[in-house]
C-alpha cells in the first residue's frame, strides 16, 4: 500500500480540513488515559496519537449504547442521517473489533441501516501503538499492535511526523485532495518497521509471562473445557455487572425497548449483557443459562468458539479493557491460560 509522510503541523491542518465534512473524534490524554474527544480548534494540539488504545471503544460511534431505531409504522423509516464521523487515532485492537461489528450489522438479508450508513460515510485514520498497557495481549491472539487493514489512512509516528499508509480509496482521495500536506515517505519506512518490530517483540515478551496458550489451540481448548470446573471457579468473584460486555469492543448484543417518545412510540436499542440472568430467558420461564457460571462460560464460548467458526477470527481483540473493568478481578488471560491442554 502506498505511504506518504506528513509532519505534525500538516496533520493538524488535515484534521482541521476534515472537520468541515465530518464530526471528528480523536484521543486526548487525561491523567494518563486516553479518551475520545470531539475535535475543536483548541484541542488540535492535544491529540495523542502515540501510546495505546483509548479507555472507550470505537464501537460506540457506530453502535451507540442507546439509540433510537425507529418510530412506529413509518412509511419512510429512514431517520435523519447523522453527520458522518471521522475517528482519528484508533488502535489495532479496535480496528480488529470492527470486523466483528461489520459481520454482525451488515449481514444480509437484514442489514442495520444506521450502522451501515455511519460506517460507509465515516472515515478512520488509525495509528500504531507506541507502548502497551499491562492488560494488553493482542499479539497472543494474532493481532499486531499496529493496524494492518480496515483503515482509510494509518499513521505511524516517526520523528516529528507520521508515515501515512493508505488503506482505502477514500484514504487515497483524501491524500490526493490535500497532496500539498504530504511528502515522500521512502526515507522513513525502514525506521517505522524497526520500531514496529521493537514494540511487537517487547509485547510478545510481556505476554509470554502470562502463559497464554497458542492462539490456534484456543478453540479446541475451550471445547475440551466446556464441562470443566474452571467456569464455576471463575464465576465465584463475578458480580454479574456486565462491565466486561459494555467495555468490550467486540461485544455486540443488544436489547430492543419500546417507549413513548415525544410524539409517538419509539423503539430503542440498548447494549445488553450476556452475563445478566435474563439474557437467554424466554417468556415461558425456561432459561438455558440459569447459573452464572453458564453465562460466564457463554461469553468465552461466543468469543473463542462461535466467532472462530462463523467468521474465522476471535470475538476478542486482546485490548484488555475487561480486565481493567472487572470488579471481581477476573482476568481473561488467566482464564484462557487455565483452559484444558
Amino acid at each position, binding site marked *: 500500500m502506498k505511504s506518504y509522510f506528513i509532519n505534525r503541523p500538516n496533520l493538524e491542518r488535515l484534521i482541521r480540513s476534515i472537520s468541515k465534512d465530518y464530526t471528528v473524534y480523536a484521543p486526548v490524554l487525561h491523567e494518563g488515559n486516553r479518551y475520545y474527544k470531539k475535535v475543536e480548534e483548541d484541542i488540535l494540539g492535544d491529540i495523542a496519537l502515540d501510546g495505546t488504545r483509548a479507555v472507550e471503544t470505537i464501537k460506540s460511534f457506530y453502535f451507540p449504547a442507546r439509540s433510537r*431505531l*425507529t*418510530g*412506529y*409504522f*413509518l412509511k419512510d*423509516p*429512514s431517520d435523519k442521517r447523522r453527520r458522518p464521523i471521522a475517528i482519528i487515532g484508533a488502535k489495532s485492537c479496535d480496528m480488529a473489533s470492527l470486523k466483528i461489528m461489520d459481520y*454482525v*450489522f451488515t*449481514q444480509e438479508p*437484514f*442489514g*442495520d*441501516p444506521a450502522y*451501515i*450508513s455511519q460506517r460507509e460515510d465515516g472515515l478512520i485514520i488509525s495509528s500504531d501503538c507506541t507502548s502497551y498497557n499491562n492488560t494488553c495481549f493482542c499479539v497472543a491472539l494474532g493481532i499486531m499492535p499496529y493496524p494492518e487493514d480496515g483503515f482509510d489512512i494509518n499513521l505511524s509516528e516517526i520523528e516529528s511526523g507520521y508515515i501515512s499508509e493508505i488503506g482505502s480509496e477514500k484514504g487515497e482521495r483524501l491524500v490526493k485532495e490535500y497532496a500539498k500536506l504530504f511528502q515522500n515517505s521512502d526515507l522513513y519506512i525502514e525506521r517505522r518497521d524497526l520500531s514496529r518490530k521493537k514494540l511487537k517483540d517487547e509485547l510478545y515478551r510481556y505476554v509470554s509471562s502470562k502463559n497464554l496458550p497458542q492462539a490456534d489451540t484456543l478453540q479446541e481448548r475451550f471445547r475440551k473445557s*466446556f464441562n470443566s470446573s474452571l467456569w464455576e471457579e471463575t464465576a465465584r468473584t463475578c458480580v454479574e455487572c456486565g462491565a466486561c460486555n459494555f467495555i468490550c469492543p467486540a461485544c*455486540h*448484543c*443488544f*436489547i*430492543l*425497548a*419500546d*417507549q*413513548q417518545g415525544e410524539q409517538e*412510540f419509539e*423503539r430503542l*436499542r440498548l447494549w*445488553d449483557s*450476556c452475563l445478566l440472568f435474563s*439474557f*437467554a*430467558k*424466554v*417468556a*415461558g*420461564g*425456561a*432459561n*438455558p*443459562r*440459569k447459573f452464572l457460571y453458564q453465562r460466564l462460560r457463554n461469553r468465552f464460548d*461466543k468469543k473463542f468458539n*462461535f466467532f472462530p*467458526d*462463523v467468521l474465522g477470527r476471535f470475538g476478542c481483540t486482546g485490548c484488555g479493557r475487561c480486565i481493567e473493568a472487572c470488579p471481581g478481578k477476573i482476568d481473561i488471560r488467566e482464564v484462557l491460560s487455565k483452559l484444558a491442554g
Partner: protein
Amino acid sequence: MIDNPYAPIKSEVIDIHEESPTIKTFVLKPEVPILFKAGQFVELTVPGIGEAPFTPSSSPYEEENLEITIMKAGRVTSKIHQLKKGDIVGIRGPYGNEYPLSDFEQKEILLVGGGVGLAPLRALFLALVHHIDRYKAITFCCGARTPADIIYKDCVLDKWQRIDKKINFRVTVDKKDDKWQGREGLVTTTLDNLKIDIKNSVAIVCGPPIMMKFTTFKLIEIGYKDTQIYLSMEKNMSCGIGKCGHCRLGNFYVCKDGPVFRYDKINTLHEIWD
C-alpha cells in the same frame, strides 16, 4: 437507504378467539400483506410496551389476514391478552426458516404438538392439507394438560378429522375431567403403536422444551432417525435478524438459522433442551 428492519407494520386486531383459559388466537390485518411460510415467525409489537416472537398459526395461503395464537406467559403477552377488536398492533417479519415441505412429499407425516406448540403446527397442517395429494398420510398427535387446555378444539376434535381419510388424529390430555372420553397420558403415549411406515416418515415436533425433549427421545426409541425429526426451537428471539445475540444455539441463531431445525443438525449442541 435500505429498509429499516426494526420498524413494524401497522396491523389491526379484527377478531379474537378464546382457545383456552390462557390462550387466545388473534386475527390480524396488516396494512401491507405479510406473506410467510409455515414455520417462520413474526415479531408482534404492542405499541409502547414491546414485542415478542410468534409463529403465525393460520394458513400461509391466507394472504390478507394473519392469525397468531398466544399464551399469556409474560409481560408482553399479558398486554396482548388485553387487546380488543379494533386495537392497533405492529408486526414485522416474517423471519427465520420454514418447514421444508418439499422434503415431506410422498411421506407419512407425523405432527406432535403440546399446548400452545400446536400453533405453528396448525399453519403447517393447513399448508399440508392445501396440497394433500402430495403427502401419503398425516398423523397429528396433540397433547394438552387438561381438556380445557386443548386449543383449536373444534378442529382437532372434529373438523380436521373429517378432511380426508389420510388424516388421523390422536388427542390426549395429561389429566382428564369427568366429561373427557378420550386418551389420558402425556403426548409421548400417543406415539405407541403408531400405524406409520416409520422408514418413510418425518416427524415434526413443537411444544415446551421438556415436551420436545421427551418426544424426540421417544421418536428415536420407536425407530425415527435424527434426520427424520424436525423441531421448532424456542429461544429468546428479540431482534429476529441474527444481530442481538439472545437466541444463540451453538453456531446458530435460532431466529435466522431456525426456528425449524432437523434434529441431526443440533443433536450435539449444548443447551438445546434448556
